[in-house]
């Protein structure tokens, strides 16, 4: 497969973890502008564990997911008391705090005569676990998409379960859900932690794909993209965020004639789309219609 195609498909896969993470919070009724922080937490913690301590990637990924979940839980404790715009602003503030912490984070060890590890604004080089094991880009692409497929199947199963119905009930009307005996706060904290773990998994994979990360990777732009993907694709099914990523990156790649201005053109398109379809292309109505038609 062409290097370019492999690169685009890998990026679509990596972005999808972040989009699914934003989607999970959206269906629970919360709009987070801060999922990039947990992506960063995953990238840094996974990178430290493989590059500095020599742990295998699967173990580092699991540990990074735990760290991401814990970080999201801790951020969720105070912020989930807020609603709507205030929650969005609080998550953005938390993400910026995390990014500044990455800028201050220096933890290096000498490995084979080279200093390896996070070095503040200079970034974190040498996350080479995948590279040193001779995994080719095609192999890594298969790994990313394999994990994404597992996450997607898990999502689809949850959505068809009682848990999925509870989440949507909380998202649609938290007061009504509370009156039915659902512990809304506890559920939302669980959702925030799960979304953090998912974003962290994407972060680990991103760090090992790039071999280099830096605090600027995890700024607001990444968070806005992930949220936009979930909203463009639709909130009716977990396939929506993936559709959003594919459409966005596909549209961007298909509009190369606009060069650097294509981002601006695409931003306008997103705004227009969200005016006419505020819950995305695959919203609940479309999903119900599709299910009725094909089941």
């Amino acid at each position, binding site marked *: 497969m062409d290097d370019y195609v492999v690169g685009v498909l890998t990026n679509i896969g990596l972005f999808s973890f972040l989009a699914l993470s934003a989607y999970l919070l959206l269906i629970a009724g919360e709009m987070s502008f801060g999922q990039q922080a947990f992506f960063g937490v995953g990238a840094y913690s996974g990178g430290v564990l493989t590059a500095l301590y020599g742990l295998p990637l699967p173990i580092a990924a699991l540990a990074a997911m735990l760290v991401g979940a814990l970080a999201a839980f801790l951020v969720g404790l105070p912020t989930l008391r807020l609603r709507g715009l205030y929650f969005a602003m609080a998550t953005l503030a938390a993400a910026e705090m995390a990014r500044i912490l990455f800028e201050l984070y220096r933890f290096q060890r000498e490995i084979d005569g080279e200093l390896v590890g996070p070095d503040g604004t*200079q970034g974190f080089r040498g996350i080479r676990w995948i590279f040193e094991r001779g995994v080719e880009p095609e192999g890594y692409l298969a790994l990313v998409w394999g994990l994404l497929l597992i996450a997607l199947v898990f999502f689809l199963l949850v959505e068809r379960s009682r848990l999925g119905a509870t989440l949507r009930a909380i998202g649609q009307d938290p007061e009504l859900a509370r009156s039915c005996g659902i512990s809304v706060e506890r559920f939302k904290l669980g959702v925030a932690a799960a979304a953090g773990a998912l974003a962290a998994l994407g972060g680990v994979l991103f760090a090992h794909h*790039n071999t280099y990360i830096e605090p600027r990777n995890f700024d607001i732009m990444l968070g806005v993209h992930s949220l936009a993907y979930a909203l463009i694709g639709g909130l009716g099914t977990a396939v929506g965020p993936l559709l959003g990523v594919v459409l966005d990156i596909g549209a961007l790649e298909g509009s190369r004639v606009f060069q650097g201005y294509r981002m601006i053109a695409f931003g306008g398109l997103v705004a227009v789309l969200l005016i006419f379809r505020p819950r995305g292309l695959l919203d609940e109505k479309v999903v119900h219609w599709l299910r009725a038609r094909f089941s």
Partner: protein
Amino acid sequence: MVKSALFLIFCFYACSAFSQKVGAALECTATRTDFIYDCVIRLSKGGEPLAGAQITVGADMPSMPMAHNVKPVKAKPGMKPGEYQAKLDLEMLGEWAVKLRLAGPVKDQLILLYDFDEKGARPVTRAGRPPRK
């Protein structure tokens, strides 16, 4: 069995050390077409020019990771040993992380941070520290 295991462990660490000692520098000049740069890549290993490498050059913007999918290009051997030439087609000015994937005598992946402007590119310096190679 033990000898084989020790040998594998030795190889693992030897290969790791071997793969991390390639130095690289980039010199780019802007062409007449916006955002397209003619670049010369200089590779060295142990202070000596590294010839015969196959280099695939890609790029990503640190402030917008994964949003730009610059088409990777193969670098051609340049005028001098250890020199390679590549034409980079970036999408905008600013800071780019240029990714060099090496094959041939040395298998490695290097990331070079450069700031691309209307004239060319210069290494990124931050917090008063020298650029890293």
